[in-house]
């Protein structure tokens, strides 16, 4: 080898090692997996317990059929229900007269605590459904429009395989109802 080419050896070694590390971890280059976590959300782990929290629901101005949500022309009164294993594991409060309902993911009922004298915990504060991840299971997220008589009309529903859920905040689109919702 020509000794004059020696000066290029560090660059050559750097490229070779870089390519080696890249191909050895083709889907998971060290350091890159977590650094870009904001762009690439990680999947939930089988057997793990997680909270599903609904933060925001947005509906279009009218239903797919073109009808307004409420007969008097007002915006819908929105609530969300989370179903798992055939039961409702979480029901949100009703947000009245809005196309854009937002819920806090944690609440403390000070009145209840003051009156009962009980303690509260983080689990009590979290406003969401807790699920464990098993293969083949799913959760159902239903959005309802409640009318003045308290009758709930389904505005949209989405079924999600629990094992395919991702950690962090995501946006989902309803197939029915035309609205969209985000949950984390």
């Amino acid at each position: 080898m020509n000794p004059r080419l020696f000066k290029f050896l560090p660059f050559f070694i750097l490229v070779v090692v870089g390519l080696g590390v890249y191909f050895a971890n083709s889907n998971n280059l060290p350091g890159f997996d977590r650094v870009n976590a904001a762009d690439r959300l990680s999947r939930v782990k089988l057997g793990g317990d997680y909270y599903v929290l609904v933060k925001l629901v947005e509906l279009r101005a009218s239903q797919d059929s073109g009808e307004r949500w409420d007969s008097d022309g007002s915006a819908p009164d929105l609530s969300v229900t989370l179903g798992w294993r055939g039961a409702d594991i979480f029901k949100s409060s009703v947000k009245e007269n809005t196309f854009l309902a937002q819920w806090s993911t944690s609440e403390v009922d000070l009145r209840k605590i003051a009156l009962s004298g009980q303690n509260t915990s983080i689990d009590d504060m979290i406003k969401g459904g807790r699920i464990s991840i098993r293969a083949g299971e799913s959760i159902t997220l239903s959005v309802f429009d409640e009318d003045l008589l308290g009758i709930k009309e389904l505005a949209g529903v989405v079924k999600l395989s629990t094992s395919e859920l991702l950690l962090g905040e995501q946006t989902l689109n309803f197939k029915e109802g035309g609205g969209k919702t985000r949950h984390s």
Partner: protein
Amino acid sequence: MKIHLLCFVSSLFFALGVFLPCLEVDPQYGSFTGAVKILSPEYGEKKVFSIVSGIFDLLSEGELFIGFILLFFSLVFPLLKLSVLWSVHASRVGGEVPGRTLELLSHLGKFSMLDIFVIALLVLVLKGMPGGTEVKLLPGVVFFALSVLLAIVAKIKVVN
């Protein structure tokens, strides 16, 4: 140890040092750690950085000043130093007098631990993070530090 072997191992360790994970950050939020991990699991995840991924991340997030500082002192500068070291060694092997290259090597040698200093400073900053956040050093740092030390030994041998 032969000079060319020292240079080769130093170059190899440098490449491993910049590409292998060097820091693991385990974010903690004091007594709220549990709550944060439940409400925002992505903020509670451990993060692993290599020197290259850290620089890439800083630049992509618009932190150009610190990104370019790190790029220069932990990637370009050590690479240049190794290249000059090889060049001086090659001149000696070829029976030439490495006049200007040797002078350049001597100048670069004055900053020989600056790259390590940058990493050390980074660790100190991260160690000082509140909430009990833990920072672990991973093999990348060891390879990087060994590369710098071997380059210093090689430089001493080449000059003498």
